């Protein structure tokens, strides 16, 4: 055995002390630097499962592998095409954000988006008629985006005729998908389905989609992972602020848009639309994050969260070491600022797959990189710094390709550890938009939200159960 530790006759360079302060004080009195842990008891009912999982001989290396696989992914934007083509989605099949849910339990904004999408696909004339269609359940199916390698912001509804970004990891050929961003306000993803919403969706199908497809193909693969790294240097956190990312994408596509086969008026319209929608890049950031996180799935013994997603009713997480199982609890109401006369009573609980950005270490986790929007989500700059630092207490590693300048270029906190969440009670911090709870209303505000605490002990229990089964086998 190789002894790599300092000789026992040499004083330790530093001591990390957890527990009774008198021992820390006694060491400090002997002139050894002490780092004290502010320890608190773990979440109720988790003590035994925490010990089981901590003692799992697979855990450390499984988590290191999960983080490495995630960080090794290069997410390249390689194409834009209709969902029917990319996912084989057929008429009557709808994808949605979050964990699985049926119409009966669906929230207002998800219902509104599904109703709009049904009209968009020509299943009904009037979106209001879609209610009976979805209630009957015949000829329509609902499935989470995540089950098809996709992610969708807010309601996240995808139907066959919608065009999607395609992100690919060149090393493995794996792909992920996300619809095109419609902008803010009255939009389908916030549950609005008025005529203007449907008109915009048709324009995106007939003009924007084909134009982007042509430009992306001509541009060749665009490195979304690198753009994300640059965004963090430019005041974006890639969830509620995507302004720099949107402009960088437009910069890369501009020559190819101009040279496309489409008429100049269409190209100008596309420029105006993308340039006027600061969230356009969100729908590239999200599948880029999913592509990286999917690489970390299905590693036995890993306690790393690979997806956080909400459908407006339930908040669900998936964990590397527990396969495709969802751990769900009630989605929470965000705390933040409201548009116009809207107030807390108008808001729907948390919704959307966009928490994939936080799962990957940006969004709310990288709030310190985006001081410009801290007030938009109801916070202060010191809050933002504290949040980004606090998230490091529940993550496994950091992402050197996504450094945060104000934190002295520390990499984004990466790989939420279910155990660390249960130990510290620190919940992942998510920046989010707020949808109106009535179908058809659209966006009512934006703010900060956390997952329901109960889903982390539930995931931990499943991890512990698997650990015990393996040990017993």
């Amino acid at each position: 055995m190789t002894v790599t530790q300092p000789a026992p006759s040499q004083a330790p360079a530093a001591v990390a002390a957890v527990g009774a302060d008198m021992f820390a004080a006694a060491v400090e009195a002997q002139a050894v630097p002490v780092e004290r842990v502010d320890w608190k008891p773990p979440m109720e009912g988790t003590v035994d499962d925490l010990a089981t999982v901590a003692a799992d001989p697979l855990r450390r290396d499984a988590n290191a592998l999960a983080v490495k696989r995630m960080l090794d992914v290069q997410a390249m934007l390689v194409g834009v095409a209709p969902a029917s083509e990319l996912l084989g989605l057929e008429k009557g099949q709808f994808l949605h954000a979050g964990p699985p849910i049926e119409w009966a339990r669906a929230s207002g904004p998800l219902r509104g988006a599904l109703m709009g999408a049904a009209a968009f696909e020509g299943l009904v004339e009037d979106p209001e008629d879609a209610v009976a269609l979805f209630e009957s359940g015949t000829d329509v199916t609902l499935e989470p985006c995540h089950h098809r390698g996709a992610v969708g912001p807010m309601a996240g509804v995808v139907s066959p005729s919608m065009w999607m970004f395609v992100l690919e990891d060149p090393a493995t050929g794996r792909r992920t998908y996300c619809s095109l961003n419609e902008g803010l306000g009255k939009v389908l993803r916030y549950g609005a389905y008025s005529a203007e919403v449907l008109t915009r969706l048709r324009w995106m199908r007939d003009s924007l989609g084909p134009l982007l497809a042509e430009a992306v193909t001509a541009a060749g693969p665009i490195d979304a992972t690198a753009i994300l790294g640059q965004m963090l240097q430019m005041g974006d956190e890639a969830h509620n602020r995507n302004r720099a990312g949107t402009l960088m994408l437009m910069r890369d596509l501009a020559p190819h848009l101009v040279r496309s086969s489409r008429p100049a008026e269409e190209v100008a319209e596309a420029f105006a639309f993308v340039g006027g929608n600061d969230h356009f890049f969100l729908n590239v950031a999200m599948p880029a994050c999913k592509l990286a996180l999917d690489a970390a799935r299905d590693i036995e013994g890993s306690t790393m969260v690979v997806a956080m997603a909400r459908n407006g009713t339930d908040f669900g997480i998936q964990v590397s070491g527990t396969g495709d199982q969802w751990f769900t609890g009630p989605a929470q109401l965000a705390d933040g600022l409201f548009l116009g006369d809207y107030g807390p009573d108008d808001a729907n609980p948390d919704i959307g797959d966009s928490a994939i950005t936080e799962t990957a270490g940006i969004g709310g986790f990288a709030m310190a990189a985006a001081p410009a929007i801290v007030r938009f989500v109801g916070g202060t700059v010191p809050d933002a710094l504290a949040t980004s630092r606090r998230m490091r207490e529940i993550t496994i590693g950091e992402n050197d390709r996504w450094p945060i300048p104000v934190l002295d270029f520390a990499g984004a906190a990466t790989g939420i550890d279910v155990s660390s969440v249960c130990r510290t009670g620190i919940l992942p911090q998510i920046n989010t938009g707020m949808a109106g709870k009535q179908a058809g209303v659209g966006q009512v505000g934006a703010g900060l939200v956390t997952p329901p605490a109960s889903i982390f002990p539930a995931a931990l229990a499943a991890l512990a159960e698997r650990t015990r089964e393996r040990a017993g086998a």
Partner: protein
Amino acid sequence: MTVEHVEIRAGAYADSVALLQVSRDVAATPGVVAAQVAMATELNLEVLAGMGFTLPPASPNDMVVALRVDDEGVVPAALAAVDAALAAARKGAAGGGDTTLAAPRTTGSALRRAGGGLALVSVPGASALVEAMDAIDAGSDVMVFSDNVPVEQELAMKRIARDRGLLVMGPDCGTAVVGGVGLGFANTTEPGRVGIVAASGTGCQQVLALLDHAGVGVSAALGVGGRDLSSAIGGISTMTALDRLDADPTIEQVIVVSKPPAAEVAAAVEEYAAGLGTPVRFALLGAGQPDITTQVEGLLADLGVAVPEWPTWGSPATSVGGSALRGLFVGGTLCDEAMLIAAESLGGIRSNIPLSPELALGSDLTAPGHLMIDFGDDGLTRGRAHPMIDPTLRLDQLTKVAQDPETAVVLLDVVLGHGAQDDPAADLAPAIAAARAARDVPVVVACVGTSADPQGLERQAQALADAGAEVHLSNAAATRRALALVPGGSL
């Protein structure tokens, strides 16, 4: 007519040591008759019920504030005192410096910030493995002071540490010295050529104290936890510690001190040690085995150092009748050693850490005949501080056994060093004097410490002697003196 005020603070937490201080501070508030601020563990709830408080339901993660005051008007002041004391207790944990940087919440986070180092874990036993594994994952050695760690968890963490070349000191490791730095309860000694491996905290402290008196320095004392040489653990940390000391060129002689080990594990470890370059002496307690003092004398002979006379203080104790030996210990190994010595002439001794199961004491800790109690045992520290920090339980018991006409002699230990009470004699000497004023029972004390300890060996020993006790540096010598005062006890 006093007034009772009990409140449950859900989710509030402070460690048992901090809460002891809080309770004391609050009890000192004018108008407060009794105050107990504690986590609502089963044991603490029993203590509170015993104090006569009526308690609402609470979980162990809740804090209970229980006050008995002169009248209702005192309650606000008492609660303010609780908050002030809790705030003062928290200050240490939050640390100073940049106020925008919150303290780390896990051992892993603390080690990342410190850039590595040694981890020192003293959280409640059920959470100790989780913190220790952070250190093992970070490539750091770890000392686990916590007790009440399940044995299968101890085995799991030690196996993983061994596979990664790391040392787990503990769990229930009271004492370690690494490069002259004392961790947990450790005595202040000069660095020197001896290395100690200790499956026993107070056994280690006895060796440190005796070697210090003999003028021999110790550079490293690696605690391994009291169960390391059990069949369940198999000496994993002992062997790692032996490797470390063997590889250190400054260490010329090693001594292994342990509570009674499993025979097959002791044999395996002795065989392992025989293959090392550094000579290793084994001081393993057991029936028919030499006591620790004898082993230290052998070690001194190995080193070519003359064995000094072990010091005593006070005048020789004299008998007042009675037939039973009553030992009240804070050090588990000192209790074991005393029982082993006494059993040779007295036979079975009832104890909460009995040498054989039929000698086990009930939870009331009383029995006719010879009796020795280890107040540092897991069963008596669940949810409260170690008796080296909080002497309350032992002081209560001292008063009881001294008044019992059956008691022929009271045998006590006092353990000094970092981490222990600032001035143990300040509580114990008056208690001895009071007990002897009621009944002139002989009291023999083993006072384990060094001159350089924060409490000062001579000052403590003299204070106890002034209260009427006969005081020894050697626990074995103290035990033999006590035996001489018990009918049938002389060897």
